[in-house]
């Protein structure tokens, strides 16, 4: 199983339209925060994994551009892609090279500069993120379109409504309004969401996460180093990963993401969490709500609710603070923003600070058991990475 690995420093920029900085300048904001948070210097970082989806931004070798600008070169680096789950994949790789004993300290940096291209170009690129030849080329599916296929099927099977989906967005904006790093910091109402135009029927504008620039960073270290650096290391207790089909037509269900379900089982097993009711142990979760329907699917894939009952958690407001399990207290992808390659480290940075009791008071979850979960999906269930964090040292 290798060595225990802990998070010792995190960084998270303001998400949004970041036309005030270029790509390496934006990345440096997050890297600097993470180094200062850990009390480390660049020379201490032995390997850097950079997550970036790209295509819409000008630099084709972002890892090197960032390493040079941030003074992390000449240490080794690589850029990884797992679509919207690239960030969690980067943390997994940083974790693995530390767990293997190869290095003592590694860093995962997430970066996305989506606003370097006009919106139609970005819509085009994300629409191609499924199966280009058999889905996009002839039928012009978009990213909201793929999730709309799930929304139509889920609503039909379980009687969920467009109002139910809007209630997810209302919660995201409620917490986004309390997060100074969020792209959208204004509360919305169900009426406002319902009145917004269709993007991919039945999904409307307020069901969709925005186009976002952002950077995030997570520094991980082995047990010996972590204990020297901090009194509150946040341990990586388990990571689960799985892959879905690239072509949606090859899937057997459109009311759950099979890869997400499988990754959850693997992560719970590794972390030793009872799968019958993980909400008993997990204090707070960040789930992949690129669209409102995706948050409901996540509740069920993660076993926070039975199949078909995720929508009940929404109606009963069970995922606000004080409910069964607080979810997306950052505002989620929907309100905090979704800078594709930076989203995963962003979730893990947020949860690290939640476990440390260090986020804004009106969106701080009560930490009882010291467990948090990041659910990060790439594409439309193409990639799934689930990372479980813990304040107590994993038993190996």
């Amino acid at each position, binding site marked *: 199983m290798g060595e225990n690995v802990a998070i010792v420093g995190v960084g998270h920029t303001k998400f949004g339209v970041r036309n005030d900085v270029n790509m390496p300048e934006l990345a440096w904001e997050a890297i600097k925060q993470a180094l200062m948070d850990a009390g480390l210097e660049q020379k201490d970082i032995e390997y850097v994994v950079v997550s970036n989806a790209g295509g819409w931004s000008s630099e084709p070798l972002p890892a090197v551009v960032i390493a040079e600008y941030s003074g992390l070169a000449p240490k080794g680096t690589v850029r990884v892609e797992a679509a919207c789950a690239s960030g969690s994949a980067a943390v997994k790789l940083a974790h693995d090279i530390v767990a293997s004993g190869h290095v003592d300290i590694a860093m995962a940096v997430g970066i996305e500069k989506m606003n370097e291209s006009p919106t139609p170009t970005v819509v085009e690129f994300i629409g191609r993120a499924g199966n280009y030849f058999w889905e996009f080329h002839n039928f012009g599916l978009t990213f909201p379109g793929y999730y709309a296929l799930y929304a139509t099927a889920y609503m039909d099977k379980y009687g969920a409504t467009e109002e139910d989906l809007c209630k997810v967005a209302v919660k995201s904006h409620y917490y986004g309004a309390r997060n100074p790093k969020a792209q959208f910091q204004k509360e919305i109402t169900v009426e406002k969401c319902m009145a917004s135009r269709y993007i991919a029927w039945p999904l409307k504008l307020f069901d969709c996460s925005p186009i976002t620039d952002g950077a995030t960073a997570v520094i991980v270290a082995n047990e010996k180093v972590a204990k020297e650096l901090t009194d509150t290391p946040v341990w990586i207790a388990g990571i689960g990963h799985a892959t879905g089909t690239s072509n*949606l037509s090859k899937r057997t269900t459109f009311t759950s993401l099979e890869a997400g379900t499988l990754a959850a089982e693997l992560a719970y097993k590794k972390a030793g969490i009872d799968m019958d009711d993980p909400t008993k142990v997990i204090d707070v979760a960040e789930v992949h709500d690129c669209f409102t329907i995706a948050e409901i699917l996540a509740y069920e894939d993660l076993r926070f609710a039975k199949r078909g009952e995720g929508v009940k958690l929404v109606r009963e407001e069970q995922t606000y603070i004080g409910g069964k399990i607080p979810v997306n207290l950052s505002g989620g992808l929907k309100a905090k923003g979704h800078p594709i390659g930076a989203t995963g480290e962003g979730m893990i940075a947020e949860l690290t600070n939640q476990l440390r009791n260090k986020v804004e008071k009106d969106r701080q979850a009560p930490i009882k058991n010291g467990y948090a979960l990041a659910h990060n999906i790439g594409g439309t269930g193409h990639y799934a990475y689930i990372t479980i964090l813990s304040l107590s040292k994993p038993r190996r």
Partner: protein
Amino acid sequence: MSEGKKTQKDMMEEQMKQFYSFVESMKKSMGLPMVPDMKTGQALWVDQREVTLKFIISIDKIKEFFNALADGKLLGTKCKKCGEVFFPPQKDCPKCMDSEVEWIELSKEGTLLTFTQINVKPYSFAHYDDYIVGIARLPEGVNVTAWIREKDPSKLKIGMKLKLEIVKREPENYYTYEWVPVE
């Protein structure tokens, strides 16, 4: 496409044209492709290089599929060893580590599994009216994604019967396939 009506593509292109003519006027006065962000005034450099993406894709192993479309047929493939049917067609069966995979003609009937209407379209599809995309299951147990010939998504129901037609996609003028609701 409706005649005389502006498509999303027309609107996108008008917007881009306006922006680039603004860039040209800034270039004329400053000698640099530097413009202020419309909202914040932050300085932006506008790329002076441009690239077009148009891929050339190898289809030699599955060219029968495309040739059959021209004859009005929808083909899939089937592994001679394990019997698995593939759509989209593929000539390798990963389960059997084998390439003994044969062509079969698929029935052109389906049951609708799910659907959506694309309202905000990608640039390369922005010249079309809003289109409906659906996934339907064939009796052979494989699913086919395609446009559904219907303008109003509220007229469709999951579980309804559809027929597949081989059609010419216009204005590009190439063969593809489309689901049609059965009255």
